[in-house]
């Protein structure tokens, strides 16, 4: 069962070959025996999962089941779950049990899905290797057979590793600068970062509010579409969430791709990309040509400014978003504070890890009197130029295709002492967040036995088209079916 997709598991439950309680127990048992190798979960919520499974079986018996009823999955530990510890990968929230559900959490509950637990992540979603988690690094299932402990990417590295290792068929992720797409690419699974405002951010612990977006991580585009059907939609609790009708994302998966106009941003095929990676990506694009798509080169002239702009805007927003972790109302508080200032400084010094502190400092600096115009305002102007680049490109083509990351999964410890080389991991993904448009990562080959991702980028609210393009590719390739040994 653990090799089946969400769609397949749903059919098994529907046909009655297995109950949700049985299925859930199988996944829980596997999770408990296998996850020692990966450390992809922070919390396994066995009791609640089995309770949800029992309810799902009752719903099915009452004839009230839908696609998701009784299907197991997991949440990135950034989505608040009522009554289940939600840590955001930080010591700061080690003891935090939210009394409320994130809207995404509530949506999956309403759909009858069974949440097995909370997946590991970079602390407060800040990282590209999952090494900044207070709960330990996550190991990529790929490369382990050679004895190599490689990173799964980040920040949604736990979700990506768990899905790749068949511990769960699907998991939620969030993407602020590439945090769904890069780990999906490094772990050989399918991930989608939706249009900003497509999925509610309520209850999703904020890193950089104008960039954060929740999305699906699964093995197939079809499963990602099924997740989007649950996740997307307007939420009155999030005023940045957009009131646009939600299509059935599965209904257009089988549209033919003939005539699809693909643009290749020349800036994303630069010398930052290894030749071996480039070859895999170009092979994938040739498959699209065989499916009837046309390809042309386009330019995103301001793309080179994206990392610099991002590392002003995201830390600036984060510096304010993380101020609420002050030891006053919840979360970590230092022992025996001698006064208020001591409580603030020690609680935050002891509760946050180094990468989080680095970004709070960078962000506070960028917003300081005398620097605001030169950093924050300038970065916002760059952001508009980057957005305009994409809008110009979409006047000529339907989608853009590129690599997701410049290299395949690197070894643990390789980059975590050099923040800038770590930040460059997101060189092909970050501009998409700044523009607010959707993009996918689709398995597209291997280099040295490690997965390579193809990035498909679309215009605002083109998730259905991206999923359609990914699904058609997955009908003629089997990269997404490969299983790590």
């Amino acid at each position, binding site marked *: 069962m653990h090799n089946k997709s969400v769609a397949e598991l749903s059919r098994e439950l529907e046909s009655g070959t297995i109950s949700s309680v049985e299925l859930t127990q199988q996944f829980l048992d596997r999770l408990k025996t296998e996850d020692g190798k990966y450390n992809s979960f922070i919390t396994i919520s066995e009791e609640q999962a089995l309770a949800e499974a029992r309810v799902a079986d009752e719903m099915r018996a009452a004839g009230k089941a839908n696609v998701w009823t009784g299907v197991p999955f997991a949440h990135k530990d950034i989505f608040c779950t009522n009554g289940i510890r939600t840590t955001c990968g930080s010591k700061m929230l080690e003891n935090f049990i*939210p009394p409320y559900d994130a809207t995404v959490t509530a949506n999956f509950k309403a759909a009858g899905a069974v949440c097995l637990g909370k997946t590991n992540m970079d602390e407060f979603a800040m990282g590209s290797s999952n090494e900044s988690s207070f709960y330990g690094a996550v190991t990529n299932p790929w490369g382990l057979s050679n004895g190599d402990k490689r990173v799964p990417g980040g920040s949604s590295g736990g979700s990506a590793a768990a899905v790749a290792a068949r511990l769960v068929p699907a998991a939620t992720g969030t993407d602020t600068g590439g945090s769904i797409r890069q780990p999906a690419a490094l772990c050989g699974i399918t991930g989608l970062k939706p249009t900003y405002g497509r999925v509610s951010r309520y209850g999703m612990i904020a890193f950089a509010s104008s960039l954060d977006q929740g999305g699906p991580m699964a093995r197939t585009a079809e499963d990602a579409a099924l997740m989007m059907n649950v996740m997307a939609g307007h939420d009155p*609790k999030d005023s940045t969430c957009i009131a646009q009708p939600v299509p059935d994302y599965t209904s257009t998966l089988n549209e033919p791709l003939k005539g699809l106009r693909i643009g290749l941003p020349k800036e994303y095929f630069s010398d930052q990309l290894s030749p071996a990676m480039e070859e895999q990506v170009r092979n994938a694009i040739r498959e699209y040509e065989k499916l009837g798509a046309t390809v042309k080169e386009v330019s995103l002239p301001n793309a080179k400014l994206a990392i610099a702009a991002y590392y002003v805007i995201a830390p600036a927003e984060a510096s*304010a978003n*993380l*101020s*609420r972790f002050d030891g*006053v109302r919840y979360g970590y508080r230092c022992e025996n504070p001698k006064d208020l200032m001591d409580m603030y400084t020690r609680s935050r010094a002891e509760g946050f890890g180094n990468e989080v502190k680095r970004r709070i400092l960078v962000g506070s600096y960028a*917003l300081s009197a005398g620097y*605001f115009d030169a950093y924050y305002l300038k970065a916002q102007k760059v952001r508009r130029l980057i957005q305009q680049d994409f809008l110009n490109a979409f006047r000529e083509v339907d989608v853009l295709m590129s690599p997701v990351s410049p290299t395949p999964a690197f070894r643990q410890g390789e980059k975590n002492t050099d923040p800038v080389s770590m930040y460059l991991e997101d060189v092909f993904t970050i501009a998409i967040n700044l523009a607010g448009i959707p993009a996918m990562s689709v398995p597209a080959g291997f280099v040295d036995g490690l997965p390579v991702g193809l990035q498909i980028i679309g215009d605002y609210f083109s998730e259905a088209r991206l999923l359609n393009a990914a699904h058609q590719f997955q009908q003629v390739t089997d990269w997404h079916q490969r299983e790590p040994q």
Partner: protein
Amino acid sequence: MQWDIVIGLEIHVQLATQTKIFSGSSTAFGAEPNTQASAVDLAMPGTLPVPNEQAFRYAVMFGLATNAEIGRRSVFERKNYFYPDLPKGYQTTQLEQPIVGPGHVDIDLADGSTKRVRIHHAHLEEDAGKSLHEDYHGMTGIDLNRAGTPLIEVVTEPDMNSAEEAVAFAKKLHSLVTSLGICDGDMSQGSMRFDVNISLKPKGSDTLGTRTETKNLNSFRFMEQAIAHEVERQMDILEDGGTITQETRLYNGDRDESRSMRSKEEANDYRYFPCPDLLPVEIDDAFIEDARARLPELPDARRARFKEQYGLNDYDAGILSADAKLAVFFEETAEYGKDAKLAANWIQGEFSARLNAEDKSVAESPITGAQLGALVVRIADNTLSSSGAKKVFEALWTGESDSVDAIIDAKGLKQVSDTGALEAMVDEVLADMPDQVAQYQGEEDPKKRKKMLGGFMGPLMKASKGQGNPKLFNEILVRKLGG
């Protein structure tokens, strides 16, 4: 040396919305600590603000009532600082693009002149919670019921030049926001709080001096005292050749003292930036017109109407129109009492004195405008003497009865106005006082005669057991004594 005083005000006005500015929690005052604080108010992780449309409507109404430009694109910013009763670690407020732009308010001064005070802008923001330093044995309690209550902060230009002008402006603003119904005006509960910026400059100089800000004054009286105190403090320093430090000060009204809270150097760098959780709010014509249609009669218009409709003089009309609730009470009294001038006198006299004595607001008055109106009717038709009227008022106030006529009957306060009976009493009293009658009739000076007339009133009131109509007694006396 002669000094010019320069005063600008920042006024925090709590908006009377049912719920908070970014959450659905109640804003009611006085609940048990932290019972009106939701996950959003507590700044729990992942929670997000959703703006309250009513707060925008109230702010726009304020802008329209102060002749201001309305900000068509209203942007919230984060003002970053750590404080235990500020749950998010930043206050959501406005800076560059506030909801209300430049406007003005005209104030009346004691010498009868009016003065225009310009408003620089007014912006929407959330209130913080409260830190409770008592009762926790060296610890601090945090009550977040108030956190997220909508405020508008009104910032004036430095257009006021005396405590009198500043207080007149503050009272005018109080009158405006309570008349608009956008603030309950209850200063004892912190519904309006004043920060006063004060500087001095040599008389006639064009250059402003260094200013200080005295924060959180919550009564007109404290504000007046604090200004007087600060002006004197600055004058002493300047006349001794010293310089003023730009700083924020706290005034203790009970001791008439102030102390420095923080200097400019110690001020926070608030690192303002636009709040990414809230989209800019576009205020369109339809919203503004809707707000305009909701504007009630404003104090200035009401004052003019009171003069016109009730024949009140400017002073009475000004006092009775300034407070919306008092104005309603007056109109009810005048309607039932028929005699508006008499109604105005009673409200400003006995009624206001009683409210003040018991520290009650008009809304807490135990008597209604209709009851006071009924009392006015009985004064106007001579049923009650002024001392009788006071007894009826007392009985109404203490709740002995809610009917004026029933009280008059029960207490036997009805005046005797039967001319025949009164004439008989006058004859009797005059017969008993021949010396005084002779003295009166021998006096030439009308003033002295008038005074001597009073000497007959005591015995007359005694003869009538206090129920004789004094006005009629007077008329009869004058006639009988021969002018």
